[in-house]
């Protein structure tokens, strides 16, 4: 039991971090970022390149992922989403753009990094073993703690910094924020950059444990959508809750339902659909997004 809970928390911490980036972008710009999973994969490959190929320390790789993805996010917002949002008749047009970017990033990853599964060596060795009741490698514990630290840092940033306040205002009411003198374009760009950066950071963190490959992008996006649906789209606390709930459900499901075959995700999906039929806006979301 302790093992299941620990696994759930470990998964949840990573998931929450992925969901945070997605929900940030959604709340600021009303864009469902289909390319989020690809950004995560890209971040993983950047860390891999810096650590395994250039031989630099892991922390440098992580920083490189964050910087590369933040710049990528900012450029994507400025040159792609902004003009399309301004000119299209329906908000949904951004979905085509986001899906196009997802394909594009897939192509770029394929050309730059190839299609092989990549990983970097463990950053710390050894396994934490509590009386055989709870076994967890130290590097997993470290990564989970790093993820939690990043989540806390993100919340503090959103809560207390000037930029964070501006972005929260923007998420609440775009027009009102603009009237109060918030530079909407600038903070949309920063928000998108931060969302992409979070995706890249998770990729960088996980490349040490699960490794990374080209095919992980799409499924990661689907999981991230699940999380923000559970918690409510565009709400930061909801994304964190959604991440931990999904992580826990996955961990419990894989153990309890193992006897019935590979149906964990089927059960999770069906549960979610029933839940959404009763509470469409998720746990903490605003009705109708």
């Amino acid at each position, binding site marked *: 039991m302790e093992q299941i809970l620990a696994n759930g928390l470990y998964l949840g911490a990573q998931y929450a971090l992925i969901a945070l980036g997605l929900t940030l972008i959604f709340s600021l710009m009303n864009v469902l970022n289909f390319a989020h999973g690809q950004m995560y994969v890209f971040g993983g490959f950047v860390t891999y390149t810096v650590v395994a190929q250039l031989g630099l320390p892991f922390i440098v790789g992580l920083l490189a992922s964050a910087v590369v993805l933040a710049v990528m996010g900012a450029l994507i917002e400025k040159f792609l989403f902004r003009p399309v949002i301004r000119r299209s008749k329906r908000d949904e047009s951004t*979905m*085509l753009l986001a*899906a196009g970017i997802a394909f594009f990033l897939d192509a770029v990853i394929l050309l730059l990094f190839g299609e092989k599964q990549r990983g970097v060596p463990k950053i710390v060795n050894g396994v934490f073993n509590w009386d055989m009741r709870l076994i967890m490698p130290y590097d997993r514990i470290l990564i989970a703690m790093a993820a939690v630290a990043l989540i806390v840092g993100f919340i503090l940033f959103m809560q207390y910094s000037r930029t964070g306040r501006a972005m929260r205002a923007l998420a609440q009411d775009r027009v009102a924020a603009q009237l109060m003198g918030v530079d909407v374009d600038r903070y949309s760009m920063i928000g998108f950059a931060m969302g992409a950066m979070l995706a890249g950071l998770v990729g960088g963190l996980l490349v040490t444990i699960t490794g990374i490959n080209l095919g992980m992008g799409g499924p990661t996006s689907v999981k991230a959508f699940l999380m923000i649906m559970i918690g409510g789209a565009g709400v930061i606390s909801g994304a964190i809750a959604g991440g931990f709930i999904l992580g826990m459900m996955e961990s419990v499901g894989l153990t309890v339902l193992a006897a019935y075959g590979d149906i964990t995700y089927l059960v999770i999906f069906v549960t979610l659909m029933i839940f959404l*039929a009763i509470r469409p806006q998720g746990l903490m979301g605003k009705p109708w997004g």
Partner: protein
Amino acid sequence: MTDHTHSSDPTQRPGLPARLLGIAAFLLLVFVLVPLFIRITGRWDFYYTLTSVALLSVAAAGVWLTFYIGRINIGQGAYALTGGYVSAILIMKYGVSFWLTLPLAGLFCAVVSVGIGLPILRLRGVYFAMVTLVLTEVARLTALALPITNGAKGITSIPLPGELSIFGLTIIPDFATLQNPKLAFYLMAALLMVLTYLVLWRIVNSRLGHLCRSLQQNEELSASIGVNTAMLRVLAYAISSFFGGLAGAIFVAISQSIYPSSFVVNDSVNFMLYCFLGGLGYVFGPMLGTLLLYFGWDLLSVAKEYQLLIYSGTMIALMLVLPNGVLSLLDRKGGRK
């Protein structure tokens, strides 16, 4: 919002003779010129591509209809998969004729979609989009888990469509005896596509279409003046799923096999993209979008490893130049805006 509804308004269209001429030209192109072109150039592989385009555009027509009531549908893959499995199981386990399984597959999907649609159609915007996306995953996982679908091994070596005859009169010959089943499949798919768009066009230009547009613009307002919005959106969704099931069933007949991964999340996303690219305000948008994206993808295979790069790059560029779909070019030419 009001702008693009005009373009589907019958009064804004060219006169009747011009329209009939356009339809005749289109039919001539699809049923005569394309087979002729393929015969001359000898590019028999185009038949498969164009058959796929026709079938995908049938499924995309359904997605478009859900867009028309203001819902983003990324779950058409689920119904295509369901339709395919219904047809395959009926043929293999119960020996039903393929031609009978076609409408049955569509109807089964429509019934299922009513059950699923009743709760989830209450959702809007990205919530509905995300749930439908998850639906595709649910369909795949269900197909993996159920015993009747034969799990990951799928159902294979399904016979080609047999003979269809009414009162001893052969209407469609047995596909296995045909010299060129590729051509037969192409003609069948093209015919189905034409019929689908005829139905879609008829729906849009009817009372039902007007009601759907009112839903797209403001659901509360239309409910307040007495439109049965709950019934209407389930109806539109059921028609949409019917198209999805139909297309899926024929795909199975062509490939003679079906696996849980025959239609995945990517396919669902693609159906949505076809609609976007063609233009959400135009009945024939999804057809054009499917042709451009699918045929374009096929032609780009000469670029080898750069195929996806060029394809997605073009898609992004098109979105930047024409954010309202390719068919919005027509608007500009007519001086309407």
